[in-house]
């Protein structure tokens, strides 16, 4: 029993000795707002995330913090896009670019990623393709990978088979598959399935997209899951399995109804 206090004191000494370096100075209110916004986005509540990111944006303007403005502008635009307001997302991006230009700070390619997604939703495909190409130059591999995935998706929407296959090939060569998070694996599989369908291999496309659907489910990305189900329906239709195609379509519709 006498040894217990001594052991505790030793442990505390070790812990204090092993204390990490202090974190860089930051605005607590801004950090809290960003954290709350991110948590709302993780819980698929973009409408709740928007006011938090707006608070954070005000704090960033208050402290004249250009890098924070770039990051929060990206977050806010992504939240507005997730809230199904692509026009508002584009306006937010324009505001962010103007604020960065005022401060002589370059606009990060991440802004182009959100712009590409918003323009794709607005069916402004040529502009979306340009934005996705710019976003693919990002030094952040996650941004670049998502930009390539968007490029392939935009090419598919435009009926450009070569573009889909090219984007899929480039995405495959970006990084080894094993080390990737689920969403990136799912992106690769979905784009590969689209490329297979575009190349006239619906059976391969169906098998690949099924894997992607499972990953989307695990990742709780249900809009992407519905997109995968519709692709599976298209692949089954191309195989002549009309009942299977109808079943996939019905599953996608039920998922959409449940989301409302």
């Amino acid at each position, binding site marked *: 029993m006498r040894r217990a206090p001594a052991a505790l004191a030793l442990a505390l000494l070790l812990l204090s000795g092993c204390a*990490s*370096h202090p*974190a860089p100075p930051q605005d607590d*209110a801004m950090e809290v707002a960003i954290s709350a916004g991110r948590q709302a986005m993780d819980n698929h509540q973009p409408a709740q995330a928007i006011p938090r990111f707006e608070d954070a944006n005000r704090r960033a303007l208050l402290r004249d913090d250009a890098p924070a403005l770039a990051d929060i502008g*990206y*977050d806010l635009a992504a*939240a507005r*896009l997730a809230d199904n307001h692509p026009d508002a997302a584009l306006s937010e991006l324009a505001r962010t670019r103007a604020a960065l230009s005022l401060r002589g700070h370059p606009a990060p390619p991440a802004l182009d990623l959100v712009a590409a997604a918003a323009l794709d939703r607005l069916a402004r495909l040529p502009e979306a393709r340009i934005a996705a190409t710019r976003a693919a130059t990002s030094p952040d591999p*996650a941004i670049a990978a998502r930009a390539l995935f968007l490029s392939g998706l935009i090419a598919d929407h435009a009926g450009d088979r070569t573009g889909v296959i090219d984007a899929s090939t480039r995405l495959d060569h970006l990084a080894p598959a094993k080390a990737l998070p689920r*969403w990136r694996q799912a992106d690769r599989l979905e784009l590969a399935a689209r490329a297979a369908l575009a190349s006239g291999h619906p059976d391969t496309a169906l098998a690949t997209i099924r894997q992607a659907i499972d990953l989307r489910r695990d990742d709780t990305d249900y809009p992407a899951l519905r997109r995968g189900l519709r692709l599976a329906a298209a692949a089954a239709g191309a195989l002549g399995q009309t009942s299977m195609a109808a079943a996939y379509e019905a599953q996608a519709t039920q998922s959409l109804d449940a989301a409302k």
Partner: protein
Amino acid sequence: MTPERPPELQAERARDTVAAEAIAGHRSGRLTRRRYTDEWVGLLVLAAIGVFAAAAIEAGILHNWLQPPGRLHILLPQTGVGGLSPGADVEVFGIHAGTVRHVRLNPDGETWAEAEIDPQAEPFIRRDSAATIKLRYAVAGAAYVSLSRGKGEPMDWHYAVVKATTDPNPVDMITATIADIRTHVLPILDNAQAMTASLKAVAADLQQGRGSAGKLLTDDTLIRQAEATVTKLQDTIAKLQPQIGSVLDHANRTMSNVQSASRDLKAATPQLPAITRNARDATAELPALLLQAQATTHDLQGLITQLRGLWLLGGGGTPKPADHRISPAQVAP
């Protein structure tokens, strides 16, 4: 050779000469004065004329002579000129201000009169002046033009125009009023006549016992039935009397409950301000509490980040800077 004269004659002659010279001198002075009399009279006349001219200028007579009267064109109403004729007076707020010189008809069918206006009255006649043709004694007499005093923009006297209206003749108004009354009263009299006839017929029917009212007057069956009904009603009320008592008891009990509730409420009312104050204080504390909660959460996050960085817990040692960007996976097409 001149004969020598005696000295007496020479002396007399010398006296005569002196006297003659004196008379001649006196005559010549009188003649000089007579010669300038006409000039003096002329000068006096000229001075008088000058004084008259100065007085006339001072009195403004010349000014009035030199300034011609203003010409005012009065557009007369299409319904008639109201007896206006050349020579009629023009008045501005009751003061004579000019005379109508001509009444003419232009090719467009409009009648207009031209009046000469006294220059003194011109400042009072403006663009908003209203011209009315009136009769001197309301219903009779000579027609004249009455101009109201204007307060708007000054009139352009190069071509001054006002539009005239005719003052309604009181006789015409009285005639029209009588005609109107007649139009309204005659139907009323007709209706009264018809109503009287109807009343007469109703009274005759009543007397003869026709209709329900007639039967009431002539037949007493209905009265007897009414009496029987009243008797039954009295019986019914007598039967209901005990039940009414019970209902009243219930109502009394309910009222006493309500009174009790009111008393409780009254007793609780003094505590309301305190409750409100407490609620207000608690609400005022909420923002600070939220802020504290946010700060605590943030501190907790920082602590977790630091703990993750400890090598004892498998961390790398140095905490990563906070990532502000959400995952690109959430940028959904």
